[in-house]
């Protein structure tokens, strides 16, 4: 098995194995003895390489949120199959994602519309500023996910293109 987390825009490989006492994490060539005991209100105690650290943890779906040394971090578990699929397709240009959270001011295209690279697809509003979202390539719009007035989170799929021939 190959496991990985996305942490601050980086994919990091890690493996976990059972030890007689607790577990071991394998990071590159390094192996560290670890264990985690969880308590109430998200409090948890991490033991790593003989050191003890108090943390606060929470999970939602594939996300693990950790408060460590006075700062909050987010790790996203990358499913092995998803990573495989992504590496085979490289289809990033088929989807248009939100650069930041916001709401839709206007949608200029409908499914089936043929568009050219740079054409305005929709106008969004965030931080009291309007931003236009343009076509990353020539192509045909497959789906439009949001209507005027709706809000979305960062990285939300706004529109998709039909796969290029």
């Amino acid at each position: 098995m190959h496991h990985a987390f996305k942490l601050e825009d980086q994919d990091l490989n890690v493996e976990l194995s059972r030890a007689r006492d607790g577990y071991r994490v394998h990071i590159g060539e390094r192996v560290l003895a670890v264990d985690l005991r969880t308590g109430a209100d998200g409090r948890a105690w991490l033991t790593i390489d003989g050191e003890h650290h108090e943390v606060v943890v929470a999970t939602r779906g594939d996300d693990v949120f950790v408060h460590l040394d006075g700062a909050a971090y987010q790790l996203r578990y990358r499913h092995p199959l998803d990573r495989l699929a992504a590496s085979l397709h490289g289809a990033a240009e088929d989807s248009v994602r939100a650069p930041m959270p916001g709401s839709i001011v206007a949608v200029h295209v409908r499914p089936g519309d043929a568009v050219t690279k740079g054409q305005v697809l929709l106008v969004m509003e965030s931080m009291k500023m309007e931003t236009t979202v343009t076509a990353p390539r020539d192509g045909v719009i497959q789906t439009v996910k949001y209507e005027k007035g709706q809000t979305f989170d960062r990285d939300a799929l706004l529109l998709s293109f039909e796969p290029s021939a």
Partner: protein
Amino acid sequence: MTVNRQTIDTVRARVPHWPFSSVLVANRGEIAVRVLRTVQALGLKGIVVHHAADRSSPAVRMADAAVEITGATPVAAYLDAAQIIAAAKASGAGAIHPGYGFLSENRAFCEAVEAAGIRFIGPTPAQIDLMGDKVRARNFVEKAGFPVAPSAIEDDDPASFIERARKVGAPLLIKPSAGGGGKGMRIVRDLALLEAEIERARSEGQRYFGDGRLYVERYVENPRHIEVQVLGDGQGSVVHVFERECSVQRRFQKIVEETPSPALDDAKRREICETAAGIARSCTYRNAGTVEFIFGQNGEFYFLEMNTRLQVEHPVTEQITGLDLVLEQLCVAAGEKLPYRQDDIRSRGHSIEFRIYAEDPARGYTPTTGPVLVWQPAQGEGIRMDAGIVQGGEVTANFDPMLAKLIVTGSDRDDAIARADRALRDTVLLGCKTNTAFLRRLIAHPAFVSGDVHTGFLDANPQIAADPPLTQHTRDRLLAVGSLMTRPMRDVADSVPDMHAAMGGWRN
């Protein structure tokens, strides 16, 4: 600020019979909670309006009654004056507190509230009008004899423009009359170059805006933002409640506010505070208000604008004076005179407010969203957290990204900064990225520690906003926690027999 027993007894003596028994808060988030706290402590009934998106917000949970309002967007609901006044009538509210933002400085709303026979907890409509228009406010303040930035408008008398511009003095800023967005602006530091720069600005204005008319104003280099809290009873009595410095800003929005300002000595403090009180007195101001100044490195200061409402950063003033500014607003709205004089208002210690935003400083301060899975605000001596979120709630793109305000008070500035660092470290919010780690880097910066910042400080120091690279030690610990909290990884690890495990590390 919680209203204590003694304050309540004092207020009973001050306002034996409230002319209203319930107050509707026409706002949301932390400020709705803040206002409700004082309203309820006085034994008055607190009512809130809310959009469905805020149904499980702390303000709605806390209020004695909540009225749902609707709108094309959640923000539109809070801007719908007719609907809010209808809600106030239906719920029998005797007064409306507008909070800040939304309808708080809207003349038509204020008039409509009063026309409906409901008290507006704020200034008079005429005062909103006067201070809401920048040019009108500036002219009023200048006429009353208070300092505004020297300027010269070409249109007033084109023939004498250059002569009048020269009188403004260097450094000065030339702006196209038709301009905006900083285009065509020129800074002149040497008056010998004035005429040549005016010609250049004129041709740029012509090119950008098809209009070559200009105006000139004094340019304040690396200015500080210093504002003064005032209180007026609308019956002739006005006091100031000292200053706040709000120079740490990003995109012209305040992030950190403190009082006293590290830039002022006692004489300067008296001068700027008395100027603010004088401006408020000139219009027989009613309500809590804030007079904002631009403050130059050499101690010159000019009127910027006056906000005729409770400010986001009002708590730092409360912390060092012991006043409850919402209580003061309520008493004034009840028709009471200010019961104290300027000399009765004293300050003690130092207080700093940090705005906790759902945003990512490293990505240009863009807003973030997400669930509030864990929310554990810092606690302890000198720590006050005014929050508009609850654990289990959700941060969405519907509203302003300010989640909470951390207000830290200490015996002096160094003490307050030290407490702030601990409080920011101990504040846990998981599920939605916030700016708390950035705030810790900010207050550790030597310029902040020495109190030497100006409004362009963060733009000039973008490295403070950047996430420092993770150390291997931090990355290891995060990956360990992530792995141990992820079901598929634990399942795979647990499926390997103990005997293999006992043999030592395995590789794949």
